[in-house]
């Protein structure tokens, strides 16, 4: 018996998985969907106006579906914009406007 030499061998794994790209891309889409659902914050807002005597009383309210840091400050900004660019310019600061 003779030991003539050594050759190396490779252990190969041959595999085939159809649709192998699908899980990867689905994961990418899933993460973006998750980010969207985490960063988008639903909010409802109402503006009601009615005439009382000679004045138009405007009421503004908002409701957050997901808790936020300070909903009142956001509402105050909205009110400022509503008043600041109103149809007749700034309202006289006689009354109301509690934010």
């Amino acid at each position: 018996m003779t030991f003539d030499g050594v050759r190396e061998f490779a252990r190969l794994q041959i595999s085939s998985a159809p649709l192998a790209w699908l899980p990867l891309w689905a994961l990418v889409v899933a993460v973006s969907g998750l980010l969207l659902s985490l960063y988008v914050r639903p909010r409802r807002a109402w503006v009601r106006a009615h005439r009382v005597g000679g004045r138009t009383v405007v009421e503004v309210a908002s409701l957050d579906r997901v808790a936020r840091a300070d909903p009142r400050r956001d509402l105050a900004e909205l009110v400022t914009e509503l008043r600041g660019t109103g149809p007749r310019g700034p309202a006289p600061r006689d009354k109301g406007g509690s934010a």
Partner: protein
Amino acid sequence: MTDTATTTTAGSPAPDPEGPTPRAPALTRRELARWAWRQLTSMRTALLLLALALGALPGSLVPQEGVDSLAVARFRVAHPDLAPWLDRLGAFSVYSSPWFAAIYLLLLVSLVGCLVPRTAVYARGLRARPPRTPVRLDRMPAYATYDADGGVAEVLDHAAGVLRGRRYRVDTDRATGAGTDEGSGAVRAEKGYLREAGNLVFHVSLVGVLVGVAVGSLWGYRGNAIVVEGSGFSNTLTQYDEFTAGALADGSSLPPFSLALETMTADFQTGGPQVGQPELFEATGTVTPAPGEEPADFDIRVNHPLSVDGTSVFLVGSGYAPVVTVRDGDGAVVSSGPVPFLPVDASYVSEGVVKVPDARPQQLGLEGFFLPTAGRDADGLPVSAFPEAVDPALSLFVWQGDLGLDGARRSRSTAWTRTGCRSSPTTTASRRGCCCSRGRPRGCPTASAP
């Protein structure tokens, strides 16, 4: 507040838009089924199942049968107490175990059962008007009031514009007698519909992941083959040492490519604290995508598989195949060629068997170890000092008897170990040790003169 109908339709995260849960004491079968369905399709269940499916991942830290059965065999030897328990749990083939399949199917059903109604609710919510204005706005968490100069209609038009600018979806309730001095009206607005859309996209994508993985494992296949330098591999079932196919895969119609392996390089660190650690594995050769086509060069390294015809070829290991020639008493060659010896440790001490079925009067089996860099330890036992073949040696026992090959079994070095001679009840096997070094043929009495 009378807007309950619109509140529940508009992007509410509550997964269960249906009525109250049935009373516990009197559950009819129908109610029970409804209750079970609702539990299964609730978001909570989906999350729980997802957690369980992820929980299976640590399970796969145990070597897997379909991935590397050699590692499983080694694990069984190393942990004789643990292995039977892991077997009972299916831990050696986690992803084909019944409990994993059950979790998988339940998760899929749960997701789909949750998604379909939620998508319908969302679609309705998109078409519905923003929720009606509450009667008492001052009870809302954020509230302000002021006096404006314009009329009601003017103020509302302006507010609608401002809210639209802030990306609200806006709808105006015209006041009775709008534009006149008396009367009232309101603008309702809502934004943030994309939140639920993102939620739905997330869950649809999870279904995509599940479907993709399931299709891949049901219609996919995976096999291992040992290919010695200078020889080839063609992609047919008989060429595999191990082959596992998905339940719906057709193993008889594999893509007809073939490989010719020219060199297999395994480099190891020769110095430093990591001496003997693998540095590079590389297999090169040519690949023929289909019979009659032009062969192309390939170069497979770890994590750089070869891709042919939708099939990937990974390099998962290497080893040595000593070229052994066995001659009979008259000097005629009865066996010749490289025989793969499977590495059993990090220094590539390798175990293998050379079968000589043509030896007369009795068949021979040479069983033992290949040592890439032969040395002896403190007890005088043969060991390998380094994984590269610097000073290779073979340490073999020679058996004579019946090799047991007549049952038309394929010769597989993995499954063969120590079957053959010893297990044959009709002949008493005798064995004698011998050690051969390359280039120095040494007499092996039993091999040449039985």
